């Protein structure tokens, strides 16, 4: 039985390949995601191992919670003496770090798109690691020398002896570059630009005179790092901790990997969508194969094979297809990983070109999904195959193996109802409280069920649908049009499944279009309402912020009436990261309409926190409540809620504190800089004049971008557009698989219709007409898929937008042009899918087609 099955599989290599292709793409993406994230993990592990090499113990301020890149608050210089007095300490040095932008020789700031721009002091003792090692040149000495990371030096053609400007929180200063820095294997710190100085210079530049960000300790030969850590810890004052370098390396590496975890999750979700689409293709293919092999399978039954053996035969084919697809897919994962690495490199993340080795997890998950999905999709057709009666071998009977329309309607409706219920419950959470993670899963499962149900139910409407879509065809393209419409409805289920595969991808695209457009519209409305200022100065990329000096300079000019700085900070809200903004309460009323509760702004100036109305209502707080807020520097505080606000166009946080409160509770990297400035020009000053002043002021701050109201609004839209492009690019994967699916189904259908096509050719149909007929059919199927997709996408878009009302997305906007464009896109996809099958059909040998059995 196994041999018979295997022979059949390999007799149809092309079919095997086409079928496997759909799963292959999905598996390749899954494997690629894993390989890629493994590469990132390994890179960070190596990086932190390198950074902490030559150190045994780190002494730093105790942080209440992990703040990622920001690092712990500073400690006093005197701690170094305590550390040095501990027996077993060979060397110990303090270091500082902070925000720094390097300029190239032409005077342009070097700003990577994603990673931060940082700087710090370099250790002096060569035995001690911790701040990179000199690749070329020497260590900087004194207030006019600096060393920069080797990658930045190379990319910008900066060499020892060059003089470049470097911006630090309070100034832009010229430095002579005296050396380049490497970090173990890496030429930079995960894409960040790094400027190194001697300790005293760095302390001045970062405003940390007599302070350290941390102290690096090297143990004496033969001293156990853990014991040394304990000894140092015992000597340290309260609030300062000692950790072994190994622990710190692991913790930082993990923190970074975790912050990139969302990337893995996002990529995997798109890969799973692709696999889900592939499962439709597999199921359809096997259904058609079973139909075509009906006589053969009936003959097997007639000569004594059991129903179980017939199931087994079909399943074996699925196993072969699944195995083949998984193995090739995992191999192609390296290509995908390389492509992702390339994308990361393009946005500034420098990852090694060698990908991580194949982890057993990658193989197991890839195989399980590839094989599992293929076999699962083939089981139903296989079971149907076993119901073929032996008599079918002898007679030309059309065996009805499919579910009755009645049962289909009932089951499909139930699945649809449950799916919608899961989505609604997940989004609005009124009926069952599942917890945030389970709710997301429930929404995902609900979406899958909706897709399945629509696929099931759509076979019932395919016929009128195709006839409706195809009504202009017969007059447009007489016979070929008529035949194409007829052919597309011949096997409604086949057409429905094929169209559904395309539906999934396009539904998600439509969904993102609607969500994105709604976000843009909501943001636009919020900005219009909330922004009283004429200009918004914001930070480019993730470069922390810019010196408060900028805001002061603008405010000091006659052309400006008020400038409100906003600062950004993370805090711990019941164990999860939340962010807040520190705001200048004195000026805010002139620049931003906060929509604060009466007296709220004045109260905020005296302390406490202003909470966004939506969160406030959701939590059921009342003014006067003291809520727990955890800060890295000052630990857990109970902060009084002094009022509410509604603005969400400029203030992109749900919690607002005063700048005084902010400064009292935030210290360290990225907290001594302004994140956003809202600047209002003085009465009677022309836009040109105010613009000139603010542009000149900001020119000194390379990572500060000035935008007027229109530009600011545009920039918010651009951010959404960027995400849309990214999501849609990832969804192309699912659409490509669906196109393969249409092509495969068409090819199999054409094979079934060999005689018919032969007859058409015999009585005088030209090859071009045959091609046209196939193309029209493909386009009809694709447009059905596109329209179904749009309907489902509209549903998803509308309910999700409604659910996000509390997150400030209170305007539903449906981009009609893009949505209609999807239909055109679907038609083009159909045309592409028909290319090969049409060619094959046109080349059909007439004699073979009409030959008798």
């Amino acid at each position, binding site marked *: 039985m196994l041999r018979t099955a295997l022979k059949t599989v390999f007799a149809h290599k092309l079919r095997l390949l086409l079928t496997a292709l759909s799963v292959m793409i999905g598996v390749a993406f899954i494997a690629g995601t894993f390989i890629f994230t493994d590469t990132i993990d390994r890179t960070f592990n190596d990086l932190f191992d390198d950074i902490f090499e030559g150190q045994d113990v780190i002494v730093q301020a105790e942080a209440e919670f992990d703040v990622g890149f920001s690092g712990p608050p500073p400690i006093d210089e005197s701690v170094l003496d305590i550390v040095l007095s501990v027996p077993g300490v060979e060397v110990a040095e303090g270091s500082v770090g902070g925000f720094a932008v390097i300029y190239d020789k032409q005077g342009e700031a070097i700003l990577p798109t994603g990673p931060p721009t940082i700087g710090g002091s370099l250790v002096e003792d060569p035995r001690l690691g911790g701040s990179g090692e000199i690749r070329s040149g020497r260590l900087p000495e004194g207030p006019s020398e600096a060393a920069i990371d080797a990658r930045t030096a190379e990319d910008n053609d900066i060499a020892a002896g060059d003089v470049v400007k470097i911006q630090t929180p309070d100034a832009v200063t010229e430095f002579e570059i005296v050396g380049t820095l490497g970090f173990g294997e890496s030429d930079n710190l995960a894409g960040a630009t790094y400027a190194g100085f001697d300790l005293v210079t760095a302390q001045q530049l970062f405003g940390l005179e007599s302070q350290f960000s941390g102290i690096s300790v090297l143990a004496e030969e033969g001293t156990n790092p853990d014991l040394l850590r304990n000894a140092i810890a015992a000597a340290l004052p309260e609030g300062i901790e000692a950790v072994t370098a190994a622990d710190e390396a692991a913790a930082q590496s993990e923190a970074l990997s975790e912050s990139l975890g969302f990337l893995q999750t996002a990529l995997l979700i798109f890969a799973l969508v692709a696999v889900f689409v592939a499962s439709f293709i597999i199921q359809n293919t096997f259904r058609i194969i079973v139909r075509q092999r009906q006589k053969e399978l009936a003959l097997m039954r007639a000569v004594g094979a059991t129903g179980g053996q017939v199931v087994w035969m079909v399943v074996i084919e699925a196993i072969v297809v699944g195995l083949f697809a998984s193995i090739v897919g995992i191999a192609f994962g390296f290509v995908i990983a390389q492509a992702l690495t390339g994308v990361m490199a393009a946005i500034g993340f420098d990852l090694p070109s060698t990908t991580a080795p194949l982890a057993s997890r990658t193989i197991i998950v890839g195989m399980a999904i590839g094989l599992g999905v293929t076999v699962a999709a083939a089981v139903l057709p296989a079971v149907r195959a076993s119901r073929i009666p032996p008599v079918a071998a002898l007679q030309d009977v059309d065996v009805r193996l499919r579910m009755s329309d009645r049962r289909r309607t009932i089951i499909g409706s139930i699945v649809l109802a449950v799916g919608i219920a899961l989505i609604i419950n997940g989004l609005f959470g009124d009926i069952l409280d599942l917890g945030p993670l389970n709710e997301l899963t429930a929404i995902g499962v609900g979406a899958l069920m909706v897709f399945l149900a629509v696929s099931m139910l759509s076979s019932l409407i395919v016929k009128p649908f195709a006839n409706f879509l195809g009504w202009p065809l017969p007059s447009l393209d007489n016979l070929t049009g008529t035949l194409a419409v*007829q052919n597309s409805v011949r096997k409604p289920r086949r057409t429905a499944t094929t169209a559904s595969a395309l539906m999934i991808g396009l539904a998600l695209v439509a969904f993102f279009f609607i969500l994105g457009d709604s976000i843009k519209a909501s943001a636009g409305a919020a900005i219009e309402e909330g922004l009283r200022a004429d200009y918004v100065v914001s930070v480019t990329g993730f470069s922390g912020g810019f010196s408060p000096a900028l805001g002061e300079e603008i405010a000091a000019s006659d052309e400006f009436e008020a400038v409100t700085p906003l600062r950004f900070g993370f805090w711990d809200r019941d164990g999860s990261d939340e962010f807040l903004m520190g705001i200048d309460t004195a000026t805010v009323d002139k620049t931003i309409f906060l929509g604060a509760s009466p007296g709220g702004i004045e109260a905020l100036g005296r302390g406490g926190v202003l909470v966004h109305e939506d969160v406030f209502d959701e939590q059921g707080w009342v003014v006067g409540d003291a809520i727990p807020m955890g800060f890295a520097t000052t630990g857990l505080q109970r902060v009084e809620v002094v009022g509410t606000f509604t603005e969400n166009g400029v203030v992109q946080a749900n919690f607002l504190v005063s700048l005084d409160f902010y400064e009292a509770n935030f210290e360290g990297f990225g907290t001594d800089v302004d994140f956003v400035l809202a600047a209002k020009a003085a009465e009677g000053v022309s836009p040109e004049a105010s613009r000139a002043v603010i542009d000149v002021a900001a020119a000194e701050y390379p990572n500060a971008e000035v935008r007027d109201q229109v530009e600011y609004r545009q920039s918010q839209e651009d951010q959404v557009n960027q995400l849309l492009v990214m999501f849609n690019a990832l969804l192309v994967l699912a659409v490509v698989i669906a196109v393969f699916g249409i092509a495969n189904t068409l090819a199999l259908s054409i094979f079934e219709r060999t005689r*018919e096509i032969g*007859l*058409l050719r015999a*009585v*005088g149909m030209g090859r071009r007409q045959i091609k046209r007929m196939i193309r029209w059919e493909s386009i009809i199927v694709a447009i059905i898929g596109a329209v179904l997709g749009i309907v489902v996408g509209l549903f998803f878009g509308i309910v999700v937008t409604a659910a996000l009302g509390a997150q400030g997305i209170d305007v539903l906007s449906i981009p009609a042009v893009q949505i209609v464009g999807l239909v055109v896109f679907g038609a083009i996809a159909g045309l592409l899918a028909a290319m090969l099958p049409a060619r094959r059909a046109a080349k059909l040998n007439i004699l073979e087609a009409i030959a008798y059995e």
Partner: protein
Amino acid sequence: MTAVQAAATGTVAARIDDGLKIYGEGDTEVRALDGVSAQFESGRFTAIMGPSGSGKSTLLHCVAGLDVLTGGQVYIGETELGSLSDKDLTLLRREQVGFVFQAFNLIPTLTARENVLLPILISGDDHDEAWFDQVVGILGIDDRLTHRPSELSGGQQQRVAAARALVSRPAIVFADEPSGNLDSKSAAELLDFMRRAVKEFGQTIVMVTHDPVAASYADRVVFLEDGKIVDELHDPTPDTVIDRMRQFGA
């Protein structure tokens, strides 16, 4: 009269000169047609007979422009088929040739009417409604025109096919075992109609069959054996055909 003379007088609808058709190479070489010359006069009903493997179907396919000769020439009217491109051949089949096959003659998704009009629908030309009515009337399928093939009996299906072969007034109709799948009553009706088409409308028909009764409807029977024409019978009856057939393979 030689083939050349016949062509010159314009009374030949199709002819094959020294037709050679070879399948395979070396040891597996099969000469399906081994120097066949024949002509099919206009307005006559010719049957091609011969035992299995004699090459009769190959002869029909080659003359009809469905297959290409290895050597020799085929003419339909004045046109030599060997020099035609696939496009021109397609056009020729559509305009000059009608077909009736043994089975699977109809497109299942089209109605009987659409199937009859198939060559005309393909070309997009207008059709002669009076002629259409006459043809479907004679064939007795005028009340079945809105039906799909799956709703027609085997005999009705073959009559729809015959109507299709005639409706475009082709120069020649080729029929490959048209009655092969029919019961004897339906077969008789179909063959009778084919003979009437020849007698009353001057249609030229060439039919391949292995059934002596079917062959007896023709004006002339050409006998083929091992890729060669071995004999010819005029105004056959079932008995004379059977007698001649007995000589094969004896």
